[in-house]
């Protein structure tokens, strides 16, 4: 069996260089162009272009193989040609603060990995959990987190079957980090991939966007603001099962976590070499989230979610898929938000209520608060 390492951030976003662009740019010398640098920046972890650069320049050249090179949220493998396909995924959780409205690092570590399995059409079977603890962490904090892991895993019906603990010196970790690995069995007859979107397909989301990111920001140091927004952190495998029971005409499922909806859609558009057009008025965002984003100068399309999925669905199955999602409590506010086009491949474009269009790009680095 080939090694199966999963890396979540994927992008094949290519530079836009046309052949008739002037080649001689020596006359132009604006302030110095900075190379992405010789060190890791926080932006390398944002799920945007810098993360994609790391994959393309460091990880894939060193570790690439046919399974890894697919760059899906999970590896799909089988043993000795058996028809049983397994999904494997791993994810590390470093969220700060550890506890937030609607969840904590423990429940998030369970939900995140289950969701990466579910997006591959897999029924989650087992989880592993590894804890990296910082010297001085109060035991009470650890107990709370471990209890939360237990509750989330029990609720999802997925047992934790092995684990590990390491302790590092004070200052070497921010309280605690968790890594979880998940193994699941892919449903028969299902093959989901970011490279399968076709012109004409319909794009759906399972509910309100941006809740998790705003719930986290609201508790960040120096930014405490009052909000009723609760993280949407949830295990989505049952929602996916409901959807796949209703139709097999699903091309691709993704959970728009880091980098938000825009990064997820840009990845799918790039992998499938298609364009996408979204309808701005149809994208579900809560009033409170819109308000917080206005105040902070953020765009909800770039804000993280931990309990939402994006589905690209064949056109004739779109209404069936929408009904199926809405029939499940986690998909109650599902909506059709756009469609796949053959125009402007690898670009996601938003149609504004004014009838004009604009690009919805991948995030270059971290989404930065604007000055005014």
């Amino acid at each position, binding site marked *: 069996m080939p090694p199966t390492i999963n890396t979540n951030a994927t992008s094949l976003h290519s530079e836009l260089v*046309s052949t008739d662009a002037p080649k001689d740019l020596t006359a132009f*010398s604006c302030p110095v162009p900075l190379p992405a640098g010789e*060190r890791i920046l926080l932006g390398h972890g944002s799920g945007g272009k810098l993360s994609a650069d790391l994959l393309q320049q460091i990880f894939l050249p060193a570790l690439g193989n046919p399974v890894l090179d697919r760059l899906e949220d999970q590896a799909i493998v089988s043993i000795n040609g058996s028809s049983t396909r397994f999904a494997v995924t791993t994810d590390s959780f470093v969220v700060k603060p550890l506890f937030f409205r609607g969840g904590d690092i423990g429940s998030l570590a369970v939900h995140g990995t289950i969701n990466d399995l579910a997006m591959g059409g897999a029924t989650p079977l087992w989880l592993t959990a590894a804890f990296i603890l910082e010297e001085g962490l109060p035991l009470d904090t650890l107990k709370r987190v471990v209890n939360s892991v237990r509750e989330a895993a029990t609720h999802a019906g997925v047992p934790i079957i092995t684990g590990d603990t390491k302790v590092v010196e004070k200052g070497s970790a921010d309280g605690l980090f968790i890594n979880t690995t998940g193994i699941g069995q892919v449903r028969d007859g299902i093959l989901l991939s970011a490279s399968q979107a076709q012109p004409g397909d319909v794009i759906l989301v399972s509910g309100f966007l941006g809740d998790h990111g705003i719930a986290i920001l609201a508790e960040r140091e120096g930014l405490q603001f009052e909000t009723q927004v609760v993280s949407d952190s949830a295990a989505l495998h049952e929602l996916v099962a409901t959807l796949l029971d209703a139709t097999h005409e699903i091309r691709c499922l993704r959970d728009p976590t880091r980098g938000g909806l825009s990064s997820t859609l840009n990845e799918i558009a790039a992998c499938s070499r298609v364009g996408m057009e979204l309808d701005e008025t149809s994208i579900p965002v809560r009033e409170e989230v819109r308000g917080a984003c206005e105040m*902070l100068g953020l765009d909800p399309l770039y804000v993280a979610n931990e309990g939402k999925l994006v589905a690209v669905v064949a056109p004739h199955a779109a209404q069936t898929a929408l009904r199926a999602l809405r029939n499940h409590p986690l998909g109650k506010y599902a909506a059709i938000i756009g469609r796949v086009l053959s125009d402007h491949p690898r670009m996601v*474009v938003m149609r504004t209520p004014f009838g004009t269009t*604009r690009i919805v790009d991948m995030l270059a680095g971290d989404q930065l608060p604007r000055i005014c």
Partner: protein
Amino acid sequence: MKYLDEYRDARIARALAAEIRRRSSRPWVLMEICGGQTHTLVRYGIDELLRGSVELVHGPGCPVCVTPLEIIDRAINLARRPDVTLVSYGDMLRVPGSQTDLFHVKAEGGDVRIVYSPTDAVNLARTLPDRKVVFFAIGFETTAPAHAMAVLQAERLGLNNFMLLVSHVLVPPAIRSLLGSPKNRVQGFIAPGHVCTVVGCRDYEDLVREFRVPIVVGGFEPVDLLEAIHMLVTQLEEGRAVLENQYVRSVQYQGNLPAQASVARVFEAADRKWRGIGSIPESGLFLKSNYAAFDAERVFDLADICAQEPPECISAEVLLGHRKPTDCTAFGVRCTPDKPLGAPMVSSEGACAAYYQYKRHLVTL
């Protein structure tokens, strides 16, 4: 969202755009000053809606973009000192200085922190008495009162470890310099609504009289901007030049007097260099000499850190509205938000970044 959705109403916006197209007998050249306004115009495609009737050129109103290279180098120098905590608004961190940017200094181990409010930096200075906390105070008249308040608060608390690295610029001297240029094509201005909320309208009235140019104080939502453009086009078609206020829900003629008083207490105007443009007389705010102890440039003696900008850089032409971002041969090819060549590509409020972010699909690169 109440108080916002009304100003994003597509039906009203379309009607206003149709009325502007009907009234406009020639393609008037208008400039919006503020980067926030540029952002809205491009995000909603208002320039597309008005093509042929109005040419919108984008002014020098992005504080991140116009902060001189040498000030960024000075911030980087401070951030590298072991005893300094440099505190900044988020979007300054990615702006390239002449060698590196603050994100890289942070990755090298420099203590660089992001806050939303300068008073958070004052609180940081209280909790870190052994460190020198320097707040990177950039912006137009809008952020100046908050920076003045931070200094006054630090003074009241008796803090001797809180300082500002000041790079404050003023809008009216920039408009004056623009209108005085023989290359000027701009026939009417949308004045920045939030700046006027603070300083009021008097300076803009002077500009209207001096240059016989119509100015409308405008808001930041699409309907605000379309209404302001409509008011400007109406004046131009009727051959009038007066100051009008579209943004009445925020701007009063006198402005915010207590805010003006705090600024006047702490800051004074003097000549200031703008990135990509050069020095403009009386266009910057500096800490007064009795607040020298709060001035990082004086405390750390940073005057020797200078940087020359290459004169060929087109960002000057873009910031002055002489050329569009898409006129640049490097736009979208060699210059992108993740690898910016010039300042307007760095901040999300920069004109080049706004074009790149929203309009790349409409131009041939």
